[in-house]
Structures are given as C-alpha cells and as structure tokens.
C-alpha cells in the first residue's frame, strides 16, 4: 500500500533542523573553547575527537528518539497506516508536539554532551579542574539558546506538515479539535527573551574576563579576534532566533487577518487551516468554529427565507380560498351551533327522563323486595297449611277406621236384633198357637219383636249414617289428599314465585344501579353538551372573527409578500457572494 504522497519522509524532514541547531550551538561552543580555554599541551586532539564523537553519538540518539515520537506520521508517509481521520488526527497531535520534543532533546543532549565530554577529557588527559568545569559550563550556557533555536526552527515545518495532513483528508475542524490549544505564548516569550539575553551575557562576560586578563599580560593584545568571532556567532544566533520568533508570530497573524477579512465579506464555506502555536492556534480554531457556525446559520437563514417565500406564495394563492372557506365554515358552524343547542335540550330531557326512570327502578326494587318477603311468608303459610291438611287427613283416616269399627259393632247388634226378632216372632207364633193361654206371651213376644225391629231400624239408620259418614270421610280423605296435593302444588308455585321474585329483586337491583349510572352519565352528558354549546358559540365567534381577519389580512398580504421577496433576494445575494 502506497502512503500519502505529501507526507512521505516528512518525519525526517520535520526534525532535520534540530540537527542544524545542534551543530550551530556546537560551533559556538567550540569557538568559545578555542578562544577562552587554555588547553594543556597535547590535549587539543583528544578534546577535538571527544567533541566530535559525543556530538555524533548524541545527535544520532536524539534523532532516533524524535523519530519514535512521530511513528504515526511516518506510517502515513510510508503507507503502513491508512489515512483515516483518526490516524490523521493522531499524526497532527504528534506533529504539534515535535518542536517541544526537539527543544528537550537538544537541551539534554547539548548540556549532557558537554558534561560527558569534559568528564572523558579529564580522564584521558591531564586537564586542570577549572578547565573541565568551564567545558561543562560551556554546555549549560549554550544548550538553552540552541534548544530555543531548534524549537523555533521546527514550527514553520510543523505548519507545512499540518497543511499536508489537511490535504490528505483531515477535516480542518477535526485538526483544530485534535490539537489542544495551549495558552503558553507569554511564558515562551519570557523564556526566549531570558535565554537570548543571558546566554550572550554569560559567554561574553566570561570571554571578556578571560581575554582581558590575557590582554593585560605581556604580548596578549592580539587575542581579541576569537572574542569578536564568538560575539558575532552569538549575536547571529540571537538574531536568528529573533527573526524566527517574529516569523512564527507574524505569519499566522497575517493569515488570521485574511480569514477574518474573508468572513467579513461573507465568504463562508471555504474553511482554511491556519497553523499557529499557543494563543494563535486557539484563535485560529475559534475563527474556524465561528466560520462553521456562521455557515450553518446562513444555511438556516437561506432555508428559512426559501420557506417564507414558498409559504407566502402558497398563502397568496390560497387566501381567497381561505376567505371563502372561513365564510363557509362560519355558516356551517352556525348550523352546528343550532344543532348543538337542540342536542342540549334533548340531553336535558333525557337526563330528566333518566332521573325519573331511576326513581321508578328504585321503586320497582322496593316492590320486588316486598313481594319476595310476601312470597316467603306465603311459602311458609302454605307449608303450614300442608301440614294441617296432612294432620286432617290422618285424623279422617283414623275416624274412618273408628267408623268401620262402629259399623262392625252395629252389624253385630243388628245380627242380635235380627235373631231377637226371629226369636220374638217364633215366640209370638208359639203363643198364638197356644190359644188364649198364650195370648199374653204372644203380646210380650210381639212387643219384643217390635223392640227388635226398632233396634234393627235404628241399626239400619245407624248403618246408613255410618255409610254416609264413611262416604263423607272418604270424600274428606280424598279432599284432604287433594288439598295436600294442592298445597304441595301451591308451595311449589310459591317457591317458584319466591325464586322468580328473588331474580326480579336481583334484576331490579341491577336495573336500579344501571339506571343510577345512566342518570349520572346523562347528567354528565348534559353538562358536557352545555359546554359543547358554549364552545360552539365561542368557535362561531372565533370563526367569524377569523373571517374578518382573513379579509383584513388580504390587504396586508401584499406588503408581506413584497418584504419576503426582498429578504429572499438579499439572502440569496449574500450566499452567492
């Protein structure tokens, strides 16, 4: 996979100037050493070799460190990482950190390299301690200025790489969001001013003291050339740093001025990346967000203007229809209001009827309850009648048995009377046969016979009466049994009547509850209908008012349409510009 063309080898290119800064500082340090230090005999070569070896080694180490801090950028350049927005944003963060990395690397390597060189030099050669310390001092004095120079030299290249990342697909707003704003311009300028002031002062003061001693010594007047060279180099570095600071600050300010001028002219939608540092970066990001917001607002204004124009056109075309529809609606609402009033009257009548029916249902329920109580009492009475009939039937049966017994007794008496009659008849006959002697006997026998016949007549009468009693008791038994059956049937009917009345009570109870609910509902309906009538009257008044407003709106619509067209034309002109 091929990498992003604009990012190829940009990692190395981004950090190359730190090497230039390092060797610039190294040149100052070597010049200072040659001019200011007193080398013991035979130690210059060793010093030179050590300076060269340490410089190369430390520079290589620092370069490796810097490149490791730019691995996403290098991956995008050589194609090992796809140019997705996340990777591009990560590369932007790495790139923005690169100048500070160079600053730290140069500061550490130059200071540490000077101290290491001094240490190794003292080990390899017989060098005075003061000389060794001055070598270390040399590194500490030159390192800050060199680091500031490396830092300032990196910023222009950082801006170039950021533009390449945007060109590779990183959205401008995403670039601003990926790199956090740091408000460090003030401390950085203070640091730069301090370093740019103190470093020459230190070096020149040390050099002046050293060379002044030598100049005051015999034959030392010709040694001012190295001092002048050293001073020139230091001033050159300070001037370079000052120029870099001015460039770093002025370039994004100029671009920001262009951007604000473009926005002032209403040229939205051409979002540009303005690379900068610290507050400049924050200001550029704020202007970008402002442009985005203005563009969005402008689009909404354009859409709103278009909608207003379209709506105004529709309103213009439909205002006549609206007016006629409002008038028709007013007429229809008048008819509906009349119907609603009729409905309200009907609802009141229904509510009144429902109230009456509810009272009737309650009366029906009370009557049904009273009927059920009566049916229960009737059932109890029928049961008592049945028991009484049954007792009568039993008594009649017992009476019939007694009558039968009496009949048998009467038959027995009748038999005796019959035999007595025969005996008296025979006695009378025998007395009659006896002639005058038996006449008295015959009279007695005749009298006995008459008695017997009287008894027989009486027994016959009794038998007849018994027969009548028997018939009567049989009829009574049958009537009693029929009465029992009738009472059974009556009790069953009474029970069914009770059950029916119980159901009637239940239904009447339900009916009463339902009627009460209906009465309540019809009352609510009546209230709702009254409210409906009032609402319909309000709606009718509102509709008439709306019709009046439609007629008045027609006169003002022309003015609105004119203003809307002017607004649409103005907005479209702005967008087009």
């Amino acid at each position, binding site marked *: 996979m091929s990498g992003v063309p604009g990012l190829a080898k940009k990692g190395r290119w981004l950090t190359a100037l730190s090497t230039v800064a390092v060797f610039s500082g190294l040149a100052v340090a070597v010049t200072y050493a040659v001019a200011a230090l007193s080398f013991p005999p035979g130690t210059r070569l060793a010093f030179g070799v050590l300076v060269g070896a340490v410089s190369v080694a430390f520079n290589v180490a620092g370069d490796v460190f810097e490149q490791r801090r730019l691995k996403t950028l290098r991956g995008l350049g050589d194609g090992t990482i796809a140019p997705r927005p996340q990777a591009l944003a990560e590369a932007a963060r790495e790139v923005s950190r690169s100048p500070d990395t160079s600053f730290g690397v140069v500061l550490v390597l130059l200071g540490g390299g000077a101290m290491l060189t001094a240490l190794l030099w003292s080990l390899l050669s017989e060098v005075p301690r003061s000389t060794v310390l001055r070598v270390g001092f040399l590194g500490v004095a030159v390192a800050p200025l060199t680091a500031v120079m490396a830092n300032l030299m990196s910023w222009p290249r950082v801006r170039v790489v950021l533009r390449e990342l945007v060109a590779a697909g990183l959205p401008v707003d995403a670039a601003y969001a990926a790199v956090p704003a740091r408000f460090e311009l003030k401390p950085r300028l203070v640091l730069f001013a301090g370093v740019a002031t103190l470093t020459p002062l230190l070096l020149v003061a040390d050099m002046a003291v050293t060379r002044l001693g030598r100049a005051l010594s015999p034959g030392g007047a010709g040694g001012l050339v190295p001092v002048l060279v050293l001073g020139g180099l230091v001033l050159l570095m300070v001037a370079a740093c000052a120029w870099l600071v001015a460039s770093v600050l002025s370039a994004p300010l100029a671009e920001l001025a262009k951007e604000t001028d473009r926005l002032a002219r209403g040229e939205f939608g051409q979002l540009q990346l303005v690379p900068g540092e610290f507050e400049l970066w924050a200001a550029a990001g704020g202007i970008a967000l402002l442009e985005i917001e203005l563009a969005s607002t402008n689009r909404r204004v354009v859409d709103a203007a278009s909608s207003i124009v379209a709506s105004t056109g529709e309103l213009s075309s439909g205002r006549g229809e609206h007016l006629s529809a409002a008038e028709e609606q007013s007429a229809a609402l008048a008819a509906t209001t009349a119907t609603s009033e009729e409905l309200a009257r009907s609802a009141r009548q229904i509510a009144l009827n429902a109230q009456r029916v509810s009272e009737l249902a309650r009366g029906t329920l009370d009557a049904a309850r009273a009927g059920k109580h009566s049916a229960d009492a009737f059932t109890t009475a029928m049961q008592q009648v049945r028991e009484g009939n049954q007792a009568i039937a039993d008594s009649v049966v017992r009476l019939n048995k007694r009558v039968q017994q009496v009949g048998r007794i009467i038959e027995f008496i009748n038999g005796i009377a*019959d035999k007595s009659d*025969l005996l008296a*008849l*025979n006695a*009378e*006959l025998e*007395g*009659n*046969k006896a*002639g005058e002697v038996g*006449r008295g006997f*015959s009279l007695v026998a*005749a009298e006995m016979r008459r008695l017997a016949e009287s008894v*027989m007549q009486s027994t016959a009468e009794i038998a007849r009466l018994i027969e009548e009693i028997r018939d009567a008791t049989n009829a009574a038994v049958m009537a009693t049994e029929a009465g029992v059956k009738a009472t059974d049937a009556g009790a069953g009917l009474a029970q069914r009547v009770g059950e029916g009345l119980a159901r009637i009570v239940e239904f009447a109870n339900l009916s009463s509850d339902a009627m009460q609910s209906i009465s309540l509902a019809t009352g609510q309906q009546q209230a709702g209908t009254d409210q409906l009538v009032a609402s319909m009257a309000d709606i009718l008044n509102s509709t008439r008012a709306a019709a009046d407003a439609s007629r008045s709106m027609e006169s003002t619509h022309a003015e609105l349409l004119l203003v809307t067209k002017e607004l649409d034309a103005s907005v479209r002109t702005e967008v087009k510009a």
Partner: protein
Amino acid sequence: MTATDSVVEGVVLCRVGGDRLAVLAGDVVGVELPDGASPYAGRLFERVASIPADARLLRHEVAGLVVDALEVHAERLALMRVPEVMKWVVGGALMGFVQAAGSLWPVVSLPALSRHLGGQAGRARA
C-alpha cells in the same frame, strides 16, 4: 189356631214385595232365616227379584216358604170362601180370603203352596 168354615184364628200375614198373602199360624213350625233351598213366595207373583237380606223362612214340617216380611195376627178373622173355579189355583193351596189390617189377604195352605212351588222349581231345574 183353629180353622172353621168361616172363621180362622191365628194367621201369619206375609208380604212379598208389594203383594201379600196369609198362612195359618198352625201350619208354621217356626220362623227361621232362609236356607237357600226353600222356594221364594215371590214366584207366586212371578217376581224374579232376588230374595231380600231380611227375608224370613216359614218352616213347615217338610218344607218351607221364604217371604219378605211377616207378622203374626192373633185376632179371629172371618174366612171368605174361594169360588169353585179358583180352588185348584196354585196347586189347590188357596184356602180363602181374610180382612185384616185394612186389607184383603189371600189365605193359603203352607204345605200345599210349598209343594207347589217346590214342584215348579224342580220342573224348572229339569
């Protein structure tokens, strides 16, 4: 009872349905309940009705006669003779007529009448 040519003393007045007849008290051995074998006096009057429950049997020495009711009349009664043309009626059992209890009663001989009716019954069964 003594029967002369014109007076009888002691008769038994018998009723058979709505009819009546009288027998001499001396011919009656005793009064009993019907035995089922003695003839019913109702045949004399061509009555086919059943014998009443309170019927009586006038026992004769050899036979008897069943009547519905009877009473003993001990008064002396004048016996009215039977015309010659009627002597052989009912097997010659008719002896004459007596006036008793405000009615005219035919007086018959109980043995003769029993035999006559018994013979009729035997001929009827044969």
